[in-house]
């Protein structure tokens, strides 16, 4: 397990490294939003690893809104000329900060450790900017999971749907049986997570890339997009009446206690499943969202390295190296529910869903179907992403027609790109 590995590592490092002075020679200040429970504890692994290399960890957590609060803090810190050594970022944020010229260069440590070989190309697209490694990826999340309450499906004689038609059929059946088909929380990012799945499931990877990642106006205005919104409309009929504003974990709780049959949510839901003493892959099935088998939406948390003073750079490099160490990647992702950002970590310790994800990602990468998730900051710049959120949420919460939604989407995206 993680801890034995870490302590082993700790021992080795202590052996080889300096004739240990008690005070930390160097310190890294890390801004992140992993503040609660398991994920914060997992990050502690990183802290201790660094401590063993005589690098002190200055913790700067700011939680809230999936990193929104942290990103505001980050802007203030950069504006003050006082950036942290490293800050947690999603892919698009990393790119945007790199484009602002605020980030440093991790290339030397990346080359030394062969990151280019082990990190999936799609992830590298974010981590490498203008030929330089600007951030170290920590994990790979998969938002396009469909979680299924196995007991309910057995009782109703249903099999996991692989297309949206099948999904609708299963949902209708659940509805007849008085079970809420889809556990969902009406928050923009949750709506958008579902939207991502529908776009990918109905339009396929190429369409997703054109419409979402490239924000191609023709794709956004196409009939396929109309169909996507048609499906979204159907989905809005499959949620319970009190869905609006609900936190995702309360939606997961509905799935776990049998009030709802399915939930479209990322792999972080596993934490809730395990906490309820259920087994992911057995009690709660994990399958790719309908029509997305073979594709893999991802979002990755990076630690963006800021352009810090020369004397702080060695510590920053140590931090990056530690983040990319197999030990940390494994230990952290076991807790987090995601899979390591490097492909050469053994899958043995991961649960069934994790192992499936590790297989799927290889397949998807080969098929050029490993795609950044729009809902989770890997599809579009913040402004376009939020513009899409606006339309998706508006449509999901009103009786807007699919045709209108498509038009709104085009207008919103266009004006956000200005």
């Amino acid at each position, binding site marked *: 397990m993680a801890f034995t590995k870490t302590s082993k590592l700790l021992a080795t490092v202590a052996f080889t490294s300096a004739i240990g002075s008690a005070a930390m020679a160097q310190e890294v200040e890390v801004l992140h939003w992993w503040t609660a429970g398991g994920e914060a504890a997992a990050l502690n692994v990183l802290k201790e690893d660094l401590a063993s290399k005589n690098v002190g960890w200055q913790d700067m957590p700011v939680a809230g*809104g999936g990193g*929104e609060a942290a*990103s*505001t803090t980050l*802007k203030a810190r*950069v*504006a003050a000329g006082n950036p942290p050594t490293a800050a947690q970022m999603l892919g698009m944020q990393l790119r*945007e*900060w790199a484009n*602002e010229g605020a980030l440093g260069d991790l290339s030397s440590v990346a080359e030394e450790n062969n990151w280019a070989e082990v990190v999936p190309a799609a992830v590298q697209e974010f981590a490498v900017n203008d030929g330089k490694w600007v951030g170290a990826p920590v994990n790979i999340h998969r938002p396009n999971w469909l979680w299924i309450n196995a007991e309910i499906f057995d009782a109703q004689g249903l099999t996991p749907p692989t297309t949206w038609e099948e999904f609708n059929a299963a949902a209708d059946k659940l509805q007849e049986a008085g079970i809420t088909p889809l556990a969902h929380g*009406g*928050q*923009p990012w949750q709506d958008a997570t579902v939207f991502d799945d529908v776009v990918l499931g109905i339009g396929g990877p190429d369409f997703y890339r054109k419409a979402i990642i490239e924000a191609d106006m023709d794709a956004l205005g196409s009939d396929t997009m109309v169909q996507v919104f048609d499906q979204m409309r159907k989905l809005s009929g499959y949620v*319970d*009446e*009190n*869905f*609006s*504003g609900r936190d995702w974990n309360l939606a997961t709780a509905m799935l776990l206690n049998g009030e709802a049959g399915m939930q479209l949510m990322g792999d972080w839901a596993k934490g809730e499943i395990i906490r309820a003493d259920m087994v992911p892959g057995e009690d709660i099935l994990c399958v790719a969202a309908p029509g997305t088998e073979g594709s893999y939406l991802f979002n990755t948390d990076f630690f963006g390295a800021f352009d810090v003073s020369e004397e702080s750079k060695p510590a920053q490099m140590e931090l990056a190296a530690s983040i990319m160490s197999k030990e940390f990647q494994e230990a952290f992702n076991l807790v987090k529910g995601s899979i390591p950002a490097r492909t050469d970590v053994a899958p043995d310790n991961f649960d069934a869903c994790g192992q499936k994800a590790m297989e799927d990602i290889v397949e998807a990468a080969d098929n050029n179907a490993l795609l950044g998730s729009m809902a989770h900051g890997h599809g579009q*710049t*913040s*402004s376009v*992403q*939020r*513009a899409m959120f*606006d339309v998706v*949420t*508006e449509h*999901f*919460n*009103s009786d807007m027609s699919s045709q209108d939604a498509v038009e709104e989407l085009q207008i919103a995206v266009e*004006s*956000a790109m*200005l």
Partner: protein
Amino acid sequence: MAQPMTGRSLRDWLPKLVLSPTVAMMAIFVYGFIFFTTYLSFTDSRMLPSYEWVGFDNYATLFKLRTWDIAVNNLLIFGGLYIGICCLLGLTLAILLDQKIRAEGFIRTIYLYPMALSFIVTGVAWKWFLDPGIGLEAVVQGWGWESFEFDWIKDRDMAIYTVVIAAVWQTSGFVMATFLAGLRGIDGEMLKAAEVDGASTFALYRRIVIPQLRPAFLSAFVVLAHMAIKSYDLVVALTNGGPGTATEVPATFMYSYTFTRNQMGVGAASAEIMLLTIAAVIIPYLWSELREKK
């Protein structure tokens, strides 16, 4: 004996010297920043400030956004109801509490305490309480009143009113305290005189007491207006702008565009509009203040 001239000039300058740190702070950190924001609203700033002049583009974008329309409308609804209800409720409670109530101090503290709580978490309590599945509706239905419905927070047309309910909860106690203080400041003799004149309790309040609470109304109004315009935490905690964008307000809009969406120019433009709104509310108040003093 002090040198007359130096003594004189020091005496003249000392008060101004004492005031100068505040004046400098205001000049830089209020007016300077307002100026900076005004400037930003005419630039193409996105993630961080940029200095590329784009004229009124941001304003044009802003006024085309439906969310902004919604936000402004919501501020009107929310601000109007919030200020109105808080004043009415605060006044009513103050009058009720002014009837020589036993345990007045205790009750007053209960009415006042919500001001002390941060909305980061209180919002969750309210959210649950208003949630039809677990809160009031469920409880009342559990008591046997099956047809009872209270699902405003899930209703696009009604959600903004739940924000009003929670906001009133937070501030009405403070307004009550302001009015109570005002009531206590009214000359007792005058009330006796009015009673001798045969005024009924109702007439007494309507004709004699309430008109004299004008300064208290103004104080309350300023505090409430300030809270209404800055109502960010509350909305984020309670509905986060939802369902859909139904409870978006200018404060959330501004934050979102400036920081989350990286459209700082548009955010600055919305801030400008907000500042103008604030000025429209506050300057008449200040004007009446200044006039009274002369």
